């Protein structure tokens, strides 16, 4: 196990800047998730940690050793690829033994390690099978088995669940988390799925366009997004945003709707800003803002209602069942204490 430090790392492919100065500190034993929309550079960053991609500038340390010029095989890391990358000509046991055989590990040790990994992952029955004879979920497990027999300093995962169906994905999520609890190996996990990030990570790194937007614990990002991008990216259904300006004690939307604020940040006064509120922080209330119901979607445990406020669709997530219909006019009210304000120009958070 080891800590990983990424310091001012940049990556260019020809003239395109893919990673534009990233700093991340990963503690020993931590489970960190890099999340961001497709194409933001997550895989590239992960591959730089693995040594599969050169580092244009900056420094990556694994366990206090600068690894910029260390080839992948000497970095003591293991990686699980999106399409598993199992060796098709080897059976499950040989797939897992490959790295140990290359290291000339004694036969008895190889066997012990494979059996241990197979037991942990429930692969004992499948050791003689070839990858083509396995289901997606089983392949996924073999890929993880190949990583854990190595007992590496760091695990790297690149979207390991994206080829699985929805149900399996949920159970594998729990399994990977559980595996980390057991092994306590430092893990860097890449995904574009914010739910995966929220449910699994100890620390989330939100990336966008080659830079880090925010680093923090899942709920920290949810409750205090540092900017508009993180606010909208984290959370499902995503945060409602309205453009307008800040006045004393209230926010006035472009269409003139007045929304109460608990505190007015002095720096924001009179400036154009963005008002954000999460769907579950909206309630039906007679003294709220009126709006026409566009969509109503009951899921049983909750009801999702989309109302038109200020010409924009606003999503409300109501815990209770409501007797309203499409086309009705209802009043909704945000809890002023749970409202977020962002700078309209920079997107930076204005509320603290």
């Amino acid at each position, binding site marked *: 196990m080891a800590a990983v430090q990424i310091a001012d790392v940049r990556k260019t492919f020809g003239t395109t800047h893919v990673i534009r100065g990233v700093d991340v500190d990963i503690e020993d034993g931590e489970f960190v998730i890099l999340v961001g929309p497709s194409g933001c550079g997550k895989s590239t960053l992960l591959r730089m940690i693995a*040594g*599969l991609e050169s580092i244009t500038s900056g420094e990556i340390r694994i366990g206090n050793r600068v690894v910029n010029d260390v080839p*992948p095989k000497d970095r003591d890391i*293991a990686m699980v*690829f999106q399409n598993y990358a199992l060796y*098709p000509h080897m059976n499950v046991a040989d797939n897992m033994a490959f*790295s140990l055989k290359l290291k000339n590990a004694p036969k008895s040790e190889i066997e012990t390690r494979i059996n241990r990994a197979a037991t942990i992952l429930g692969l004992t029955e499948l050791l003689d099978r070839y*990858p083509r004879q396995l289901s997606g979920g089983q392949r996924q497990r073999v890929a993880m088995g190949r990583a854990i027999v190595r007992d590496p300093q760091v695990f790297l995962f690149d979207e390991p669940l994206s080829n699985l169906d929805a149900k399996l994905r949920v159970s594998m999520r729990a399994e990977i988390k559980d595996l980390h609890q057991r092994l306590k190996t430092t893990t860097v996990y890449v995904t574009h799925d914010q739910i995966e990030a929220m449910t699994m990570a100890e620390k989330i790194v939100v990336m966008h366009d080659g830079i880090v937007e925010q680093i923090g614990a899942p709920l920290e990002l949810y409750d205090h997004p540092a900017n508009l991008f993180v606010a909208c990216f984290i959370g499902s259904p995503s945060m409602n945003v309205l453009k307008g300006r800040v006045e004393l004690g209230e926010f006035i939307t472009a269409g003139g709707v007045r929304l109460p604020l608990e505190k007015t940040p002095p720096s924001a006064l009179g400036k154009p800003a963005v008002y954000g509120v999460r769907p579950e922080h909206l309630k039906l209330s007679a003294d709220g803002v009126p709006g026409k119901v566009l969509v109503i979607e009951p899921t049983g445990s909750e009801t999702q209602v989309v109302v038109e406020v200020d010409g924009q669709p606003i999503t409300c997530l109501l815990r209770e069942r409501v007797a309203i219909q499409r086309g009705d006019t209802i009043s909704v009210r945000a809890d002023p204490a749970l409202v977020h304000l962002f700078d309209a120009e920079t997107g930076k958070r204005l509320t603290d």
Partner: protein
Amino acid sequence: MSLAKIFRKLGLVFAVFLIVSPALLFFIWMVSLSVKFEIDNGAYPPILIPEHFAWKNYTSVFESNNFLLYFKNSIIVTGAATLFGLIVGVPAGYGIARMNAQKSAIIIMIARMTPGLSFLIPLFLIFKGLDMLGTLWPQIIIHLVVTVPIVIWIMIGYFETTPIELEEAAMIDGANRWQIFMKVAMPIAKPGIVVSFILSVIFSWNNFVFGVVLASRETRTLPVAIYNMLSFEQVSWGPLAAAALIVTLPVLILTVAAQRQIVAGLTAGAVKGG
């Protein structure tokens, strides 16, 4: 089965027959020639199946013409040229595929397309200067012009379809370049090696021009030996056809035997699932 389906199937059978019939008829006629006496071979209207079979056409091929020597020559030349072709071509194809070196691939193709006679004469003089003409070496070396490009081009295709992630996984697992090639890339491309082996054997076995120029009486390969059976006064079709069939037979057997391998190889490219 519905009527439309039957018609479609019949149409397919007919189309396939139409396409392969020239090759098929040619082959059948050759078989027919090889078992007929000269009288039947010259008969008009032509006879397909004779009353008396001339099996001696076959036995005489083995008896005369040093046939076994030429057969051995062919095996040595084709075997050695294919072996060297694979030893050189497989790693070369790997390198070209992984380094995206299309230009070198094209240069190899051009070398392959250059008419043989343009370099045969100078090479003949060189081999003569080296006093190698009495041996099979000149032919083995020159057959590499046939086998190496075939192997390289087929292997490029195979290595390009091998997902790079597999090699990256091996790299992380601790393999060096050589180990990646030997333990991951090559085993996965095995069907490609089989296909290039077969095609290389076929092309080398059937090659004729190189032998005509470079072979002496003792170093002839089979196609050249058959050519020498033709004389200006008279062509004896029966023995000629029999000899030609015997020459073709090894290649034919190899192709039929390896057919499944080739087809399996062509469809096994998709490694994503395993």
